[in-house]
Every structure is written in structure tokens, then in C-alpha cells.
């Protein structure tokens, strides 16, 4: 350093000019740091606001001083605390709901299958495995046509395809698979846009019920044939006097067609001379359930008197009359009307 420069430095030190310049420089540095700190806070606030789904802060809306005074990071942090608390509550509720659903799936005595929109198996309950799947076979992710129907291409009457087409729940009766029968109820699960994401299919095996119904129908057909070939007049009457069944001999004797029976009541075929006696018998039968033999006079469709003799019995259910069954044969023109 030259002598002149040394002298100027001494003078400036003595006058405080050097200190003043140092302070100015330090001040500028602090201001720059503060500006950077505000920029950082503003950028972080904007980042958090974006997460909250809103717009960034505008400088004209909140100046730097107000920004610090308002403490937006603190506000949003507390808000996030509440969001997390709510999410935890929701998770607890979802877990409980999931546990409940699992318990229902396990306890259900019907097979339940959940497939996604691509027909791939997402979940199923133990009963479904018992009904359709070999033990231990991993079917998650496989298509339900392959797993259940045993074919790559869905069958033409595929319930899943119907649900995807009509987009509403449906029920099918007695769907047949490998010699067994199932009632199937299916329902779509939709997202908020109304698109089907999953389909739930519920299978209730009804093979035994179907066989029983077929057996009952066969028995009924056999009895109907027997009754229709009987020479006796056979009738079934409800407690309110309406005809449930009459056989061919009954219709032929009284001249009624098969399609007229539904509208007929016992009062229509009892001769007025005999009505009091017959209704008394009928009321006793309803009250006691005890049947017996009876002579009566019926009236045919064309008004002809038809004296009959027969026997009436009463079927009870839970102690109440269900139906009376009468078997009659023409008694000749005696005109009698007595028990």
C-alpha cells in the first residue's frame, strides 16, 4: 500500500466513513436474506395452498409483513392436522366396515363373487369356494367365465355381460351349471362417474328345491289325472267359499267350463232349499275341522237340480281351516237334504 492510500485509510477510520460503508453493505446483505426468506415462505405457502386445492397467493393481496403476521404455514399445518385426524377416523371406520363385510362374507350361506369390469375375480367367500372351486386353487385375477363356467369365452347367457350391458342389478332363477341349479343375484358397483368398476354376484344353490318342485309337479299331475278320471265329483273349497279345484266329473255334472270355476262360490251351486242345511254343515266344519257325510242338492249351470251324496273333510294349518275337500256322487232324485 502506498503512503497516500495509508493516510486516506487512517483519516476515513478516524471519521467513521469505513464503518458506515461496512454497515451499509451488511444492511444490504440482511435485506437480501430477508427478501429470500419471504420468497421462500411465499413459495412454500403457495405449495401448501395448491395441496389444499386453491390458488397461489397474490402479492397485492398479502404483502410480506402481513404474510408473516397471518402465519399461513401455521394455519395450513393445523388444517392438515385436522385432515389427518379425519383420515385416521375414516380409516378406522373403513377397517371396521371391512371387518364387518368379511364377517358377513364368511358367515353367508350363499356363494359371493366380486369381479372387476374386466371380469377378473377380485374376491370371493368360503361358500363360493365350497360350491365351485377346488380347494386351494388360486383364482384371483382369473376371469370368472374360466373359473366358474370352465371356458375362456363367456357363455351367451352370461350374467356378468348382462349387468355390464344393462348397468343395473338383476336376478336369475335356476341358472344351470354342471348339472346343478342356482338362483343368481347380481349388482354393479359404480364409481362417481357412473362407470361400473365391479360386479357382485351371489349364488344360491337351489338344485334340491328344483328337484323337489319337479317331484311335486309330477305328483300333482298324477293326482290331477287320477281325479279327472274319477267318476265322483271332487271339489276343493277355501274357507270363504271359493272353489280352488274341481275335477272333470264335477264340471260335467254341473255344466261349468274350466275357465268359470275361479269365479264360482259354493253359494252358486247349492240349491236354495238346501242352503241353510249346507251352510250350517259348512260353518260347523270350519269351526271344528270335523267333516262327515252329507246329502245335498246342487244346482247345475242350467238350473237343473242335482241331488248328491258325499263326504267332506277339512285340512287345517296352524289350527285354522285351510281348505275343505268334498267328494260327491249323484244320489238320484230323492230331494233329500240332510246330514
Amino acid at each position, binding site marked *: 500500500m502506498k503512503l497516500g492510500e495509508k493516510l486516506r485509510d487512517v483519516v476515513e477510520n478516524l471519521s467513521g466513513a469505513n464503518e458506515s460503508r461496512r454497515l451499509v453493505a451488511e444492511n444490504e446483505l440482511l435485506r437480501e436474506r430477508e427478501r429470500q426468506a419471504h420468497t421462500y415462505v411465499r413459495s412454500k405457502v403457495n405449495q401448501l395452498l395448491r395441496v389444499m386445492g386453491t390458488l397461489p*397467493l*397474490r402479492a397485492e393481496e398479502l404483502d410480506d409483513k402481513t404474510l408473516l403476521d397471518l402465519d399461513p404455514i401455521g*394455519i395450513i399445518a393445523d388444517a392438515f392436522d385436522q385432515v389427518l385426524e379425519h383420515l385416521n377416523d375414516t380409516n378406522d371406520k373403513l377397517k371396521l366396515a371391512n371387518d364387518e363385510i368379511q364377517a358377513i362374507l364368511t358367515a353367508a350361506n350363499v356363494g359371493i363373487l366380486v369381479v372387476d369390469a374386466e371380469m377378473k375375480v377380485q374376491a370371493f367367500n368360503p361358500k363360493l369356494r365350497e360350491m365351485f372351486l377346488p380347494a386351494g386353487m388360486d383364482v384371483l385375477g382369473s376371469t370368472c367365465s374360466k373359473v366358474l363356467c370352465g371356458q375362456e369365452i363367456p357363455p351367451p347367457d352370461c350374467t356378468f355381460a348382462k349387468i355390464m350391458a344393462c348397468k343395473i342389478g338383476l336376478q336369475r332363477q335356476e341358472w344351470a351349471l354342471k348339472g346343478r341349479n342356482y338362483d343368481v343375484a347380481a349388482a354393479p358397483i359404480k364409481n362417481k362417474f357412473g362407470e361400473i368398476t365391479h360386479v357382485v354376484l351371489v349364488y344360491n344353490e337351489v338344485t334340491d328345491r328344483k328337484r323337489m318342485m319337479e317331484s311335486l309337479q309330477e305328483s300333482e299331475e298324477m293326482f290331477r289325472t287320477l281325479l279327472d278320471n274319477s267318476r265322483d265329483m271332487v271339489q276343493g273349497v277355501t274357507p270363504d267359499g271359493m272353489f280352488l279345484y274341481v275335477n272333470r266329473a264335477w264340471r260335467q255334472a254341473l255344466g261349468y267350463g274350466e275357465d268359470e270355476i275361479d269365479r264360482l262360490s259354493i253359494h252358486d251351486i247349492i240349491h236354495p232349499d238346501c242352503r241353510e242345511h249346507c251352510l250350517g254343515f259348512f260353518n260347523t266344519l270350519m269351526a271344528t275341522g270335523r267333516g262327515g257325510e252329507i246329502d245335498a242338492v246342487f244346482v247345475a249351470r242350467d238350473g237343473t237340480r242335482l241331488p248328491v251324496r258325499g263326504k267332506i273333510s277339512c285340512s287345517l294349518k296352524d289350527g285354522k281351516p285351510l281348505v275343505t275337500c268334498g267328494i260327491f256322487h249323484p244320489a238320484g232324485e230323492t230331494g233329500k237334504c240332510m246330514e
Partner: protein
Amino acid sequence: MDREQKAPQVIEFDIRGQLCPATLLIALKELNRCKEQLHNGKVQLAFKTDNRDATITIPEAAGNMGYGVEVRHVDDGYLVVIERGH
């Protein structure tokens, strides 16, 4: 024995003239401050605003926090009512 539920006190804030996100920050600040009273159903917060964005951002944020929100049209804007979630 049935206990009569007292109607919640409605605390109203007039934030007309404010824009988003300031409206949301104000609402969040009050939701934080009144958290306990909101959770036990003692208060409802009602924010009167004329900023349409606020009728979306405030309900969405409050919904994410588990509160029930209703937006009503009023003469000079909207009333965003926040209460205990169901």
C-alpha cells in the same frame, strides 16, 4: 332419558371483498380456532362471501377435515355454513 340437543351457536364472518386464497386462509384459521366447539356441535361457522372460488375451496377443504358443509345463496353473495360432520 332423552336429552334435548341445544341448537348450535352460529358464528358469522363477513369476508366479502376478499379473494381466494385469502378467504380460504381465513376460514381455515377459524376452523382451527373453533375445532373443539365444532366437533362437539356447539357452534356452526358461517362465512359470508361474494367470491365464487371460495364456495368451492372452503367446502372442499372443510370436507377433507371431516366437517359438514352447506353453501347457500344469499342476497349479496353466498353463505358457506360449516358444522360438525355426520
